[in-house]
């Protein structure tokens, strides 16, 4: 039975993906995108969940999904309009569907009465009860071989399918401007059965072959519902630098099953020597038995995925780091050996370098994931929190494509949930109060992610009341967290919110206000090696900022020398490097100096001194300045002795065996096998003011 259990796992993984597609679609409709594609996508998501649930005999789920689907079908057919009340019902139903699925995953069931209430409420919004034909409940185990990504919805709709023959021949200019025909063909064939033939008739013999020219063309026979303009849109960016023709070959074929296997002999035979080459991602299964109905590639379901233990990936990353280091060592050794200079060796080394970079990128891509799924989950948090608190709130997300290491994403979910709930519960005012203040009654919570100075910065911003500092101070005094006589700056008062046992909510609510929250958030973020900051403007809102270090295993670094030590700066943080004229440097106070770069003044810090490696500068030291950005605060100028190289470096954490060091993000291993520290410029500037902050167990005596 292990096989069935595996399939169940896959079902739940896919169900999660479908649920997020469902919710995303509903949100899109909510913001006015009432196009057929979006509605269809929503419908398909519910339908696919129903299909999968049917295959695993999850009756309650099938029943719920079926009635849900019926309402969506009416919406799709235009019988219903996406009014706010209906959409609210749909979103609620989608949340409940998610609950049912997670209950089913644990082998439990949700309360049937509750199920009924939710769906009945939806049908109420939809006007009248949904039809309950039982026959649709029956699902054949056929769904299993998809394993359920099969898009059965497409089956009743073959009328729009037609055969299209498309010939495509890029010009040399297309390659010069970086187009990849492979990607275009992949797009073209992504959703439909396709046969792609390579036309290499123009290929000259080897002697007259010019690698700068374009010799290849492709002929694609496609069975698609898409219109010519839709197909042409794929080639929009290559327009004018390729030959492209489109011809609709066959009229719609009435028989569904017969239409699916592509014509046994393509109407236009390819060059005899070139056999038909299946498109990369859409294997045109010419031999697929009609019983299979649709080839897997024809479905619009998620691409096949595998689940891998993160430890295995980590191991791969470690080995890869070793590979990069040894490749650098090999290169250095060969360059220094007397026999160096052979063209073959050079070429092989070049190949090796390219390959290892490609492996690196691929492995990193496995670990790095966009924050989108995490952010998507927060929509529900906002919905539930605002409903429970009797407030109106909307979540706006930004920078969803920002890629973050998978382990970080997983560990961000809890703190982020806390922060969002807090923003709704404590940040936003009640709608009536907002109206009195002249604000829109619906509060906006903005969740944004970005890469900045080689760190990942996530902000949660609300447009609520801001922090009532007097109240915060009073509570802190009442709870004995600070002395009544303490004079606190606004920043210090804001920081009180992160103290354990602090809670400002006058009434304890179900969501937050039990005095756990912000201190937990802070310690969880600290556990990831990050920092949390808070800023607030009275009446305008509060912004919480999480700044996380690089733990993506590789970064582009600039290798430089200061005080005899080899160090690395993240290239992403560097604005420019320069050799300052004497007149650009100005003293400020006793020891500080600033650098005037084209009228912009910035603090000037010697890296060697900031790290405590030297007390003073000798002639010839610190003569090169690297200007780096520093969070929101503008730029700082770092003095270094010399710049060595720019290369990819493998990030090695210092935390495991030593601890955190102010001003240092991590370490790396260079080509000669020695260790170099990676600077964190923002932190360096801050720690420069207090040179000894013992934060490491080894550092604390």
């Amino acid at each position: 039975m292990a096989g069935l259990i595996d399939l169940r796992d896959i079902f739940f993984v896919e169900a999660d993906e479908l649920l997020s597609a469902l919710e995303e679609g509903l949100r899109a409709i909510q913001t006015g995108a009432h196009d057929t594609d979006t509605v269809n996508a929503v419908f398909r998501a519910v339908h696919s969940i129903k299909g999968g649930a049917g295959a695993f005999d999850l009756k309650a789920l099938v029943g719920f999904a079926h009635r849900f689907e019926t309402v969506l079908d009416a919406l799709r057919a235009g019988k219903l309009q996406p009014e706010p009340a209906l959409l609210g019902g749909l979103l609620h139903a989608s949340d409940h569907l998610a609950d049912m699925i997670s209950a089913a995953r644990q082998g439990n069931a949700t309360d049937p009465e509750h199920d009924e209430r939710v769906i009945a409420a939806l049908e109420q919004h939809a006007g009248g009860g949904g039809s309950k034909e039982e026959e649709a409940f029956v699902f054949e185990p056929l769904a299993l071989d998809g394993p359920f990504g099969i898009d059965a919805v497409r089956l009743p709709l073959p009328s729009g399918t037609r055969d299209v023959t498309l010939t495509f021949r890029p010009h040399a200019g297309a390659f010069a401007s970086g187009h990849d025909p492979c990607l275009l063909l992949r797009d073209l064939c992504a959703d439909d059965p396709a046969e792609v033939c390579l036309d290499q008739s123009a290929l000259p013999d080897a002697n007259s072959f010019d690698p700068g020219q374009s010799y290849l063309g492709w002929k694609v026979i496609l069975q698609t519902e898409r219109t010519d303009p839709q197909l042409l849109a794929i080639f929009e960016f290559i327009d004018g630098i390729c030959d492209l023709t489109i011809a609709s070959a066959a009229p719609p074929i009435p028989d569904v099953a017969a239409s699916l296997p592509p014509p046994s002999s393509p109407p236009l035979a390819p060059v005899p020597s070139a056999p038909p080459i299946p498109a990369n991602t859409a294997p045109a299964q010419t031999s697929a038995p009609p019983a299979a109905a649709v080839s897997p590639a024809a479905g619009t379901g998620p691409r096949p995925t595998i689940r891998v233990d993160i430890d295995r990936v980590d191991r791969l990353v470690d080995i890869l780091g070793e590979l990069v280091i040894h490749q650098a060592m090999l290169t250095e050794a060969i360059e220094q050996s007397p026999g160096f200079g052979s063209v073959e060796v050079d070429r092989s080394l070049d190949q090796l370098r390219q390959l290892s970079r490609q492996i690196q990128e691929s492995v990193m891509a496995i670990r790095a994931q966009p924050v989108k799924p995490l952010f998507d989950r927060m929509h529900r948090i906002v919905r539930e929190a605002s409903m429970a608190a009797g407030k109106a709130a909307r979540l706006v997300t930004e920078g969803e494509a920002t890629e973050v290491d998978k382990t970080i994403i997983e560990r961000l979910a809890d703190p982020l949930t806390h922060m969002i709930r807090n923003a709704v519960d404590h940040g936003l005012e009640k709608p009536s109060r907002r109206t009195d203040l002249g604000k829109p009654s619906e509060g906006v919570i903005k969740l944004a992610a970005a890469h900045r100075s080689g760190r990942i910065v996530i902000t949660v911003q609300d447009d609520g009341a801001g922090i009532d500092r007097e109240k915060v101070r009073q509570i802190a005094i009442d709870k004995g967290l600070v002395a009544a006589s303490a004079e606190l700056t606004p920043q210090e008062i804001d920081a009180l919110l992160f103290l354990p046992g602090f809670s400002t909510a006058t009434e304890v609510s179900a969501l937050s206000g039990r005095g756990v929250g912000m201190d937990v958030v802070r310690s969880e973020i600290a556990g990831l090696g990050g920092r949390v900051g808070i800023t607030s403007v009275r009446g305008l809102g509060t912004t919480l900022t999480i700044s996380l270090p690089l733990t993506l295993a590789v970064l582009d670094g600039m290798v430089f020398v200061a005080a005899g030590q080899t160090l690395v700066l993240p290239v992403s943080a560097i604005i420019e490097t320069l050799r300052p004229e004497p007149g650009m440097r100005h003293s400020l106070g006793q020891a500080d100096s600033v650098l005037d770069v084209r009228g912009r003044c910035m603090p000037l810090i010697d890296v060697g001194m900031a790290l405590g490696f030297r007390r003073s500068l000798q002639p010839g030291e610190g003569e090169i300045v690297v200007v780096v950005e520093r969070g929101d605060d503008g730029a700082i100028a770092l003095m270094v002795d010399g710049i060595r190289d720019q290369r990819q470096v493998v990030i090695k954490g210092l935390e495991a065996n030593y601890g955190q060091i102010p001003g240092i993000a991590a370490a790396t291993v260079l080509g000669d096998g020695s260790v170099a520290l990676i600077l964190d410029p923002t932190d360096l500037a801050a720690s420069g003011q207090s040179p000894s902050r013992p934060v490491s167990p080894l550092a604390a005596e």
Partner: protein
Amino acid sequence: MRATGSATDPNVRELVAFRTARQDFCVDILSVREIRGWSRPALLPHAPHYVQGVINLRGAVVPILDLARRLGLEPIEDTDRNVIIVAAIQNRIVGLLVEAVTDILTVPSSGVQPTPDLASETTRNMLRGVVVQDSRLIRLLDVGQLLPQDVEPAA
């Protein structure tokens, strides 16, 4: 040089003996991962005086503790004949810089005597006992004490 001593016999202890600052020390062989030659460490900013820096140990970044300085003994000569004993201490990998590894001792558990009262507080805290062998006094280090206690890994 991976230590796979006869840990099965509870009555016999295998100890790696080494020399630094003209004194003999030893550690339990089970905490020793490997012994390697000296390589120049990268300096760590804001580090205590006994932390020499970090080195690359097959991809892991490992801090190097100068044992003589850690114990408050006179500093050892800075030469590349020194060796690094790589030890696992409470889930951390740490390198101990010493002058030379002398031998591997097999002693019965009864051969380890308690540290004499004469020793100073600091020294006694870091020793588990002493072993007398061939008129040499070999100090058994408590490696766990080399790292300061009750400090959480970096907040």
